[in-house]
């Protein structure tokens, strides 16, 4: 099953982002298809957060993100991120 259909994985990813970036919110505040990056998104992650999440993802799932551009594509939404972690 693709990651975007795995509710447990998606919850885990939300938790990972919130805790890696010291966000003052609960995972349920993040919608599956809402944008993660930029000031207008709920999480409001910036370029430094992307790097922080990237290292947390590598440590947890062993996935490898090549560069900043790749990272921004993968972190478009929780659904996109879940599909990347578990295709």
């Amino acid at each position, binding site marked *: 099953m693709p990651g975007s259909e795995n509710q447990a994985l998606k919850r885990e990813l939300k938790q990972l982002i919130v805790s890696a970036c010291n966000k003052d919110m609960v995972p349920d505040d993040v919608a599956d298809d809402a944008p993660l990056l930029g000031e207008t998104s709920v999480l409001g992650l910036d370029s*430094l*957060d992307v790097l922080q999440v990237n*290292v947390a993802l590598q440590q947890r799932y062993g996935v490898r993100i090549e560069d900043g551009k790749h990272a921004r594509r993968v972190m478009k939404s929780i659904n996109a991120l879940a599909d990347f972690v578990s295709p």
Partner: protein
Amino acid sequence: MVERGKIYIHAAAALAPQGATRAAECRPLTSDPDTDLRALTKHVLGQGLRQASHFVELAAIGARLCLDRLGRAPAPDMALYLGTGLGDVRKTASMFRQVLPPGSGMAAPFDFINATANIAAFYVARLAGVSARNLTLTQGAFSFECALRLALDDLRADAVPAALVGGVDENCFPRSVYLSRWLLRDDEIMGEGSAWLYLSAQPAGAVAELLWVRQLAKGQQSPAQWARTVSEALVKPADETLTLVGGGGLAPQEQAALARQLPRARWCTYMEFCGSFPTAAAFGVANWLEQASPGLWVHINRDADGATMLIGWRIAGI
């Protein structure tokens, strides 16, 4: 009127390890303090510093308290001097756990950035909206004294219009990790703190005049000889009250010798409120500036090498 060579302290603030922001709120420590500063950061700064570390929070809160007490906007070209003996020890330790075996080999970006010693001074500058001279500096137990001396020199040379000078150090757990950076006796509390002074050549509204920061040559001296050397460095008008503030590097027998040498001097202490750390002197000076009484004040400190540094300031009578 600006008088040539005279430099004044306009505001002072000391953040104590348990989060006390005023001298009157400080309580003696009974164990190594482990304080979460996130709530206080939001309270004092009006915002959290999500990507920053405890060390940065310490620095930012202390600096803001000082600027708030200034009661006006700081000079736009105010220079910033942050003295620290150890820098961000917690994030440095965290980097080791992550990077070196058996860690994952990867450093969390937030930790790496915060472990860079000058990041705290960056946050302080950004929060204050100042983008002039900005230096983070270190010299063991005299890290604050050296920062203050450099700021005083820069102000006297008219190289900067005003200066915000801080002494910031944090503790870390377990204590054994801290001891690899800074030696403590078993009976010493592993303290932390962030204390700041705002200085300029303008006399109006000043709290005190900063007179000098002096280093005495080290030598093989008995406590009595040392006390004579110190007292000779403290030339003052005979009728002026002298208050001595003893730093953490002062041994009991040295303090006793100095008390014999200068029997009329008042003594003030502060280490019981902040614990031991390299820049505790900043805490002592700022803490006692809050409870000031007129006269000549001198903070006396020694390092493990036997060198002595003195900070002198004068509070005018009413």
